């Protein structure tokens, strides 16, 4: 009986940590994605890299599960490239 409770507590604290990480990430994103020194124009970011980079961001923000998958296997964020 004791062991079962322990597992449930562990699960809840695990979820709490996950949620806290998610909140932290969202708070950071709320600032770094659109605020600060925003420079636009031709000299910033070379075109070829952008799609992949943006793709990564899109994958990143879709769900916690996706995030975990990425964290576990760096090249595994495989999404179809926009055709």
């Amino acid at each position: 009986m004791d062991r079962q409770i322990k597992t449930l507590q562990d699960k809840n604290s695990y979820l709490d940590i996950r949620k806290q990480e998610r909140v932290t990430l969202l708070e950071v994103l709320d600032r770094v994605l659109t605020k600060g020194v925003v420079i636009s124009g031709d000299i910033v970011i070379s075109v070829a890299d952008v799609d992949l980079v943006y793709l990564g961001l899109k994958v990143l923000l879709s769900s916690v599960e996706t995030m975990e998958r990425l964290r576990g296997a760096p090249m595994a964020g495989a999404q179809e490239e926009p055709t």
Partner: protein
Amino acid sequence: MTMNRIIETDSQEAFIKEIEKVQDVLPKRIDANPKNVEKGLAKLVLTLVELIRKLLEKQAMRRIEGGSLSDEEIERVGETLMKLENKMQELKEIFGLKDEELNLNLGPLGDLM
């Protein structure tokens, strides 16, 4: 790793839900995918149409409240606004757009609607 920054809340899930709704993460970029271009244009056009429609509704309501329209005119205005609303609903469904998507961010001026 020293981080003296704190992030505290009593309701993680509630905030995760709301902030995710808000974050439109991709900086605007013209996507060559034709489907997306179509949707992007539809969004822009429908946003403007919605703006006009809402303004019309407000204007009409003011005039009706003010009592300056005849019964027949009120009837016609009502019919027209009803049809407009239904039409917009149809169009939104066709393009798979939600109400919240039909808005434009005007930077320092805030959102259009």
